[in-house]
């Protein structure tokens, strides 16, 4: 017999292993799944081998203290098993499992379709979601960030499409963008998604076309709005291309530039860089620099197209307000500079993005409030999302960041005194920090803890 009492953890494991002969608890479903069921712990686990079991058993038989501990462990385990089993149903049957697999295939097939729809838009520059000039692609793209697949916008659309174009040069570019975008889907995905909602929120005051672009919206702060992807999947959210014509003044692929100075020159603003001491060990101190030029996207409302759309969804009661016909909503997407700090494997480990503020203006005769009211009253906009958007008081200067409610968690934070948000992929695999300061939107992302990212963010200068 051993003279040293096993610790409670070892006793607990021993309790489980000795269970099946005399202690196994049959769960309601007939599967031994409660605490005292003994799993297959094999010799691959030498720390808790059968030999150890005998030693523990010999000790416990002769040790009053361990018997008391064991009793308490058993009561705790039994209580837990009973409570959890009482509130859980049976495992899925074979038929239920097959039905679930069938549903999954259906969802993935939908993804594939969405991928085809969005691929051209992604080709044009996923980094800043710059549209291609094709109204369909633009429409699909603007839908995508707030669509059910928003957080996987960079995943499903591009990859779903890959088998069709596995070796094209565009595919190579798309792959690079995809990796970049995947890394950036937290902060930059938020920005991109926000652009979609800016489009819905930005509300132009009446303006003569000759007056040209006049910013009515200028992002000065950020706010989170949550949406339910499953609901969004059903509604499809906005279909801007169905309400008029969407045009983009240029395609904006991100391009590699030689250094930070060149990027700053192209972007028109000084590029902030982190204190190298804040970067994780093994991460290069020399970033790869990418630049995406700004672009301008224009949605011109068209009464006939809107009529056809409303008819197609059996909403003959809806129509485009007269004042909106011919009016254009203009979204100015800012230049973006990306700094990628590669790890030891030469792949991006820390990503920093900087952009000027987003601006939205109008050309036409519709008023600010009329367009806003119209867009927030669109039938495909989930009521809860509409309520959140309506509740933004200073909406002419607040950029909403849509967050899929079941895919990301977020919390408010301050970065060097500026308000921002920490976003976490809820698989726990990545984090991002996004904030706005001095007229620019900044983001830091990487597969590391949010506190480490914030340290990098606060060192930017």
């Amino acid at each position: 017999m051993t003279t040293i009492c096993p610790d409670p953890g070892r006793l607990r494991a021993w309790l489980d292993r000795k269970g099946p002969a005399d202690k196994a608890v049959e769960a309601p479903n007939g599967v031994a799944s409660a605490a005292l069921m003994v799993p297959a712990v094999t010799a691959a686990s030498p720390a808790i081998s059968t030999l150890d079991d005998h030693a523990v058993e010999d000790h416990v038989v002769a040790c009053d203290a361990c018997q008391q501990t064991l009793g308490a462990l058993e009561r705790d385990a039994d209580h837990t098993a009973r409570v959890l089993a009482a509130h859980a149903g049976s495992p899925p049957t074979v038929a239920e499992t097959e039905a679930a697999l069938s549903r999954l295939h259906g969802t993935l097939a939908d993804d594939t379709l969405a991928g085809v729809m969005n691929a051209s838009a992604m080709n044009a520059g996923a980094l800043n979601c710059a549209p291609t000039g094709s109204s369909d692609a633009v429409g699909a793209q603007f839908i995508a960030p707030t669509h059910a697949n928003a957080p996987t916008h960079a995943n499903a659309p591009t990859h779903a499409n890959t088998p069709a174009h596995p070796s094209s040069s565009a595919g190579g570019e798309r792959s690079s963008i995809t990796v970049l975008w995947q890394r950036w889907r937290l902060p930059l995905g938020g920005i991109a998604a926000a652009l979609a909602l800016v489009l819905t929120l930005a509300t132009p005051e009446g303006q003569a076309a000759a007056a040209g672009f006049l910013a009515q919206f200028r992002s000065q702060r950020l706010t989170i709005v949550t949406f339910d992807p499953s609901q969004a999947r059903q509604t499809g959210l906005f279909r801007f291309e169905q309400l008029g014509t969407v045009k983009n003044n240029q395609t904006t692929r991100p391009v590699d530039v030689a250094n930070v100075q060149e990027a700053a020159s192209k972007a028109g603003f000084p590029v902030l860089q982190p204190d190298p001491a804040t970067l994780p060990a093994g991460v290069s101190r020399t970033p790869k620099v990418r630049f995406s030029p700004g672009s301008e996207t224009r949605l011109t409302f068209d009464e006939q197209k809107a009529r056809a759309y409303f008819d197609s969804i059996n909403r003959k009661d809806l129509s485009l307000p007269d004042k909106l016909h011919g009016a254009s909503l203009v979204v100015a997407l800012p230049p973006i500079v990306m700094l990628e700090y590669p790890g030891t494997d030469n792949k991006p480990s820390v990503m920093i993005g900087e952009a000027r503020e987003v601006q939205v203006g109008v050309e036409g005769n519709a008023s600010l409030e009329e367009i806003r009211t119209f867009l927030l009253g669109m039938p495909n906009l989930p009521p809860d999302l509409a309520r959140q958007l309506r509740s933004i008081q200073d909406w002419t200067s607040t950029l909403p960041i849509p967050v899929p409610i079941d895919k990301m968690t977020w919390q408010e934070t301050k970065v060097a005194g500026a308000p921002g948000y920490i976003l976490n992929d809820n698989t726990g695999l990545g984090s991002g920090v996004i904030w706005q300061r001095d007229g620019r939107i900044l983001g830091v992302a990487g597969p590391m803890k949010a506190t480490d990212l914030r340290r990098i963010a606060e060192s930017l200068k």
Partner: protein
Amino acid sequence: MLSVAEHHTATSDRPAERFDDLFRQLYPRLVPLADRLLGDRAEAEDIVQEAFLRLARTGQRERFDRGQHAPDDADAHPGAGPPLLDRPDEVVGAWLRRVVLNLGVNRLRDRRRAAARAVRASQLDGTLDPERSRDDTFSPPHAVLRAEARDEVRAALSALPERQRACLLLRHAGHSYAEIAATLGIAIGSVGVYLARGERAFRAAYTPDNADAGPDTPRGTTP
């Protein structure tokens, strides 16, 4: 349009079949895990579907990147090595369990959805199972009590430290110590420690008196 299976088979050796096999093998074990965490079968099935959806998309992404980029996406699979779907079942299983736990915890933390779930659960409790609807214990007042008890259990689980909660849930959903260790990235010898602490803390947080407030279900019977 290519089907999902065609996507996989375009670049790899029958990954679609492997994916389906994994689903059939793991789905029946993951749903009870999620169910114990959420206390809501529909929600449990939902997040397990979501976990497999992510697995499929990860496979698509990795296959696309292959040949142009070495698999480098830490979001898709931890560490270096072959694509996730090409790894052994136990590795994929651990990944899925981790994703399910994280998705579940995230849902628990969302108050609005929790409230919606409570309403939906109370509405559906008596209709999901025809056998139940014939039982007086599943009358609307009792359903409310069940929902309240379920929420109390969820609150007690939420209060546990992350690893203790995960160990407890995995173990009581029938997973082995080796599977738990692989899921949480801890030594197998530590599983018992976390489990013992978790069960003790859970019992303290959800007392027998509180437990009795729920359906007094004898062990081995359907609640």
